[in-house]
Every structure is written in C-alpha cells, then in structure tokens.
C-alpha cells in the first residue's frame, strides 16, 4: 500500500480486498443466523416446517382434501390419526391442506397490502403537498371504520370468492402499511442524499425506489411479519364467521367452527387448527422481534 492513499490514515482500510458482494452478503447472512437467539431459531424452524407442509400437502396426506373417508366424528386412531370431521373427512389431511390455503392466501394478501400501502406511502412522503393530503385523507376515512365489520360488509356486498377476499383484506390492511411507510419515509426524504438526488435532476422513480426504499426496508420487513399474522387471523376469523374461504376448501378458521360441537364432549380436536394458527403467529413474531432488534442495533453504531 502506497502512502499516496488516505487508507494509511484509517485503520479500516488495511484489510485484504473484500470478497465479491454476493458471497459476502450470503456469508454475512449465515453468520447473523448462527448468532441469532434461540427464540428466533425456533421461529425459523417452525416457519420452515409450515412452509414445507403447505408446499407438499398432496404428498404428505393419505386422502384428498374434501374426500369423505369414514363416519362423522371418528375418534383418533388407525387410518385417521386425528379422527374425522363433521362430514367424515380426515382431520389430518384437512389440517395440511388448510396450511396451504390459509398461509398461501394470507401471504398473497399481505404482499398485495404492502404493494398498495408501501408504494403510496413512500410516494406521499416524497411528493408531499396535495398528493400527500389526498392519500392520507383517504386512508383516514378507511381507518375510521372498524376493519372486521367493514370487511364483513364488503364481503356481503361483493360475494365471498377468493379474489374478493384477498382484495378486501389487502386494501383494508394497506392503510396501516401506508401510515408506517409514510412515517419512516418522511425521516429519510429530508436527508441530504435525497436532496442531492433531487438536485441531480432524478425522477420520482429513482428517488423512491433507489434512495428512499432501501433505507426504510428494516421497519417494513418487520411490519410485514406482523401484518402477515394479522391477515392470517382476519382470514381465520372471517372463515369462522362463514364469510371467508368457502367449503369444501379446507382452512383452519372454518375447521374450528365446523367441529366446535366436539368441545362439549371433551375432545380437543377442534382446538388443533386453532393451535396451528397460534403456533405460527408466535413463530413469526419470534423472527420479527429478532430482526427488529438486530436492525435497530445496527443503526446505533452507524
């Protein structure tokens, strides 16, 4: 290293040349994962199991999703590990397919909510002025009505097909995403590097996507985890009320409702789908907590 370079002053500089960005990012992620607390590791494992089951449900289950295989309410035992439901369908099979349907739809809904809310939030913060006012007031109006009741209302009007369900929940949840995205973006758009980009003459696309968005990712990703849980619970709640996924599609909310009578006989089977919901929610929150802690900690030493 020659004296010509300033690197002789800074201590950081005399290390060996860093590996190419991709490798480095991967190894960094792996290192971070190994250092993660136990709760986060458990959370990750649980989520992976759910995803595995959801993806390979047809291979893992002995029967078809809505196939009637025996008498109603058969007890646990050979042939039906978790018994059968009120129509004589295998509980375990329904549970696995339920993972696929409920998680899949919740995931799509959350992504949609983030696309709508995230983009409009960042745009509102970057543009400011009347655009910001317009977006924010629309969101205020939507948020003024209790979400579940509003969802029930809309689903009664538009019918209960899966696209409508996804769209209604996504729009309602995007209001929360909007508020968060706008709030965190407001802190970023006042930074000098955004001003520098504006003065360079950059368009809105570059400023929102390249300058602002990468800097608000940590809170957004954390929110994604939480929001996913809420959407998941909303779908389950709607299904329980009969306005969510329609039979014969298996999903955990309606499975609880359909078999609720069993509880009076001291059978815990109807609680298993509920437990599946609870476990996933807890797992996602473990991971989100760790992520939040990690990103906020990183911000300290920058």
């Amino acid at each position, binding site marked *: 290293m020659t004296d*010509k370079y300033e690197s002789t*002053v*800074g201590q950081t500089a005399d290390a060996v040349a860093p590996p190419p960005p991709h490798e480095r990012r991967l190894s960094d992620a792996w290192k971070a994962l190994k250092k993660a607390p136990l709760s986060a590791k458990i959370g990750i494992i649980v989520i992976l199991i759910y995803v595995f089951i959801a993806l390979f449900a047809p291979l893992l289950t002995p029967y078809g999703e809505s196939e009637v295989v025996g008498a109603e309410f058969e007890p646990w035992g050979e042939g039906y590990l978790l018994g059968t439901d009120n129509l004589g369908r295998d509980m375990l099979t329904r549970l696995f397919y339920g993972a696929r349907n409920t998680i899949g739809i919740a995931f799509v809904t959350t992504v949609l909510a983030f696309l709508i809310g995230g983009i409009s939030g960042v745009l509102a913060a970057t543009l400011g002025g009347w655009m910001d006012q317009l977006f924010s007031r629309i969101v205020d109006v939507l948020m003024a009505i209790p979400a579940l009741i509003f969802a029930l209302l809309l689903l009664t009007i538009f019918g209960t097909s899966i696209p409508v369900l996804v769209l209604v929940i996504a729009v309602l949840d995007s209001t929360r995403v909007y508020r968060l995205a706008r709030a965190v973006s407001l802190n970023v758009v006042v930074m000098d590097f955004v001003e520098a980009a504006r*003065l360079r003459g950059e368009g809105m696309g570059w400023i929102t996507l390249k300058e602002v968005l*990468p800097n608000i990712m940590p809170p957004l990703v954390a929110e994604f985890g939480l929001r996913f849980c809420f959407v998941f619970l909303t779908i389950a709640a709607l299904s329980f009320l009969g306005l969510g996924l329609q039979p014969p599609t298996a999903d955990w909310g309606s499975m609880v409702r359909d078999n609720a009578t069993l509880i009076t006989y001291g059978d815990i089977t109807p609680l298993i789908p509920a437990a599946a919901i609870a476990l996933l929610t807890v797992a996602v929150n473990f991971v989100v907590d760790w992520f939040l802690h990690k990103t906020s900690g990183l911000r300290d030493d920058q």
Partner: protein
Amino acid sequence: MTSSAENDGGLLLEMRGLRIEGQADEEWQEIVKGVDVVLNRGEVLGLIGESGAGKSTIGLAAMAFARPGCRISGGSIVFDGMDLMAMSERERRKLRGVRISYVAQSAAASFNPAHKLIDQFAEGPVEHGVRNRAEAEADAKDLYKRLLLPDPDNIGYRYPHQVSGGQLQRAMTAMAMACRPDLIIFDEPTTALDVTTQIEVLATIRNIVEQFNTAAIYITHDLAVVAQMADRIMVLRYGELVEENDTANMMSAPQEDYTKTLWAVRTFKKQSEIYDTSTTPLVAVDHVTAAYGPLTVLHDISFDIYEGQTVAVVGESGSGKSTAARVITGLLPPKQGQVLVKGEALPGDYRRRSKEQLRHAQMIYQMADTAINPKQRIREIIGRPLQFYLGLSGRDLEEKIKELLEMIELEPNQFIDRFPGELSGGQKQRICIARAMAAEPEFIICDEVTSALDQIVAEGILRLLDRLQRELGLSYMFITHDLATVRAIADEVIVMLQGKIVEHGPKDEMFTPPHHEYTDLLLSSVPEMDPNWLDELMERRAQEGVMQSTSSS
C-alpha cells in the same frame, strides 16, 4: 512530571496503567492502552487528539464510569486517596455529581427539555443532601451571575429551549459546579458553538474554575482552545499517550512527530490565485431577496464568483449563508433578484432547470454521513452521476469510477464495493467530493465541508479541494464559520450577518484592518495558539466594552 505552577493542593486524581475495552462485533477491543493520568488540585489538564483517540473514554474513566459497551479492564483509579476501582457502584454514585462532575459536548442534548433549568440545577445538591432546595436556588442564581448569564435571578426559571446554545452550555457548567466538586470533566464543551459564542463560554468557564480552585480535565480536539484553558496538555493517539508537557512548553517546543503534525495543521495555505476578474463572472448572485414563508432571511444580496475562484462566505449560524447556497442551487427560489451563470439567468426553481444547468453546479455537504445513501455501494454513489449526466455504462463507467477514486486518493479496488458505513468520516467526505466531481461541474458549493472533521483530516480535504481547483479550474463557494479555513483556502471573503452582506473583499484585505465592527468581532474571536491570547483579548474587550453583547448571545 507535575511541574505546573498553579497547583497548590497536592494529588487529587491518579490513574495508572488505565486500560479500557470496547465491544465491537461481540469481540472486546482495547481502546485505551495503558495510560497514566495524574492531576493535582486546582490544575487544568487538557486532553487532545483526533476522534477515536480515547479522550472522552479516559475523561469518563476519571469517574470510574464506562459507556455502555465499554469496560475498564485494567489499571488503578485513585481519587483523593480513594480507590474507585475497589468501590461498589453505589459508593461511586455518591461521588459522581458531588465531588466529580461532567459537562457534556452538547448541552442541548444533555438537559431534560421538560424541566426548568433551575430544577435541574437543584436536583443534584438536594438529592445528595448537600443543600436544601432554597439554598440550591440561591446558589444557582449566584453561579449564574458569576458565569455572566443575563438576568441571573430569572433565567433559571426558563426551559432549556428558551435560552441560546452558549447560555445553555454555561448553565450546564453552573450545574456541574452545584456541589462544588473537586474535579470537573469538560468534554468538548464549546465544539458545537459559534466562534463568537465560544469565546464567551471559554472565558467564563476558565474564570469560574479559577474562582473555586476546581481541578478540571478539558477534552477537545481544538489546539487553540486547549492552549487557553489548560495548565498541562496530554496528546493522545489510538488510546496511547503521545506526549505530555506544560502548555507553554508543549506549544513552543513539541517533541513528537505526531504532535508536530497536529500543530502544523493550521499552516496550510493555498498557493496561487488562478482567477481573472475581467471576464464574465461564472456565477452571479444579483440582488437576491429570499424568504421562508413570511420570514425574510436574505436581504438584497449580490456577489460574483469567477472561474477558478474560491469565495468564502462566513457568518454565525442564522446569518443566511446556507440560505444563499439554497438559492443558488434552486432549492429556495428567490423572492426578488436572480442567479446568473455566465451571464444567463437560471430559473429560480431547480425543477425548471435543465439537466445541463443542474450538472454545472454541484454541492458538497457538511455531514457526509447523511449526504450519501448508506444503502448504496461506493460504485453506485459515484457511478450514478456518470450514468445520469454523461451516459456512461459498462467498462467506461467502471474505469471512470476508478479514475475518480484515484483522484480523491482512495485505492479504487479496495473501496469500490464498500458501503459508506465501512468508511471513516474523512473518507466519506472524499466520496462526496468524488460524487460532485463525477458530474464534471464548473462550480461547487461547499457547505461547512470540514466542520465535522478532525483537523488533520480536514486539512487533507482542503488540500484535495485546492489541488482539484488548480487542475480543473473549478470555482468554489465555501460556506464556513471557521476563519482558519477561510485563511487557508479563500480568495475572496463575504461576511454575512442577519441576512445581509456586511463586508466583502479579497482575503488579504479582510484580514487587515480596518474592518466592519462585526468582522472585527469574528476575527478577534478565533482562538490563537498563544496561551495568553484569551487573557489579552478579554482585557482588551473589557476596555472597549465589547462584552456587553453577552446578554444577547
């Protein structure tokens, strides 16, 4: 080793072989590597060094305190015969604030904004049982008076945001004095203040420390300041002692090479002038008046900047110097008047300017941390203007980026794929310069570009800017409140006060009398290396009555 003339009471603090470790990435790294600090009663010790030298850490260790993420891993700390290391945390807490107190760099951040000054003053003495509330209040008023705060009987009943920065720093000093400690640690107490305010705070701090014969550890990176305050100076680097001596000896005859480079920093002077005022000015600000809403911050400002010229704009915060830059860049369209480039008027709003007009003027910011996107690699930060303005891509782009990195004296292959978080402050500022250069501008606005940097690093940046000017014929508008920087780099100087230009002329003229009254105040407030400078200045001002401005600071 303690040959200072002023100490009279014998040993107060003795730290031997002090070692402190800090946690980085789960590993403990030594940040103070066996330093001895000895302090007598009534003595003022100056700790100087660049950031990262461990000065603040050592200062806090005098209270046996380590910041979160740090730990004192070795050495002894004996305060007035008591071994602090052997004490319990509870016993140490009884000492802190009573016998040893601390004045932080940012008074604004250290006061609780929700409580009145005097309530916060009284908290310490009352809590520690030194005084009751009424006595504490009376004492506060007495100290406020001694610290020359305006209206000392009532100022304590204000909230922190209702007094100025300089007053707040003095109120903080009063608070540190509340229990009449034996030792006060001042951690860069004037760094965040304007020069004219700094002087007043320095004078009152020194005065009160003398009145109560309090020992002090004065931490700063400004040599001229430490020369005024300290009886003895310790120079630190990378957590080790470089040199220690009496102030007078240290100033006149530094021994170590590192100390000499510190001392030499202020010697940088721009070599030759390369501009020609007979041509059309490159940038002309023509009778500009600008306002934020109803508040007018610039009143009818006019000045010209020629090709290859550096114009320094000086003034306190709030004088309108940054606003002038915002008008030129088009962030704040002027109410009246216009900005001309090579004789042609620019649209007032940057959004209506052409790409070419935007490319022509670039900006370098004060805080390099926030001026570059932390989520982009250096490649993208510097590469974007090249892509955007010059349409470079592929190998051309890569080569040009490397060329720019060479130009700012950073090794291209090492830095091109780094994130800003992996750079030091000076390196970040160099990246900002490279980004500005990438647009191939003719004119660059430098907004306090060196004020957040250590002196040695800052000098490197100034030298770089000067070299680029000579090589590329650039023009600079240099906004600063540091007159040493002006002396180093400016061709012409504009002094601003309350949105008006009060003096304007070539540098040499500015630094020779007669001056405008305000220029005189600014110039005389710049600390000089002479240890007697502050005394002489205060005496002179007392005679002239300049210090009456204290009440309005």
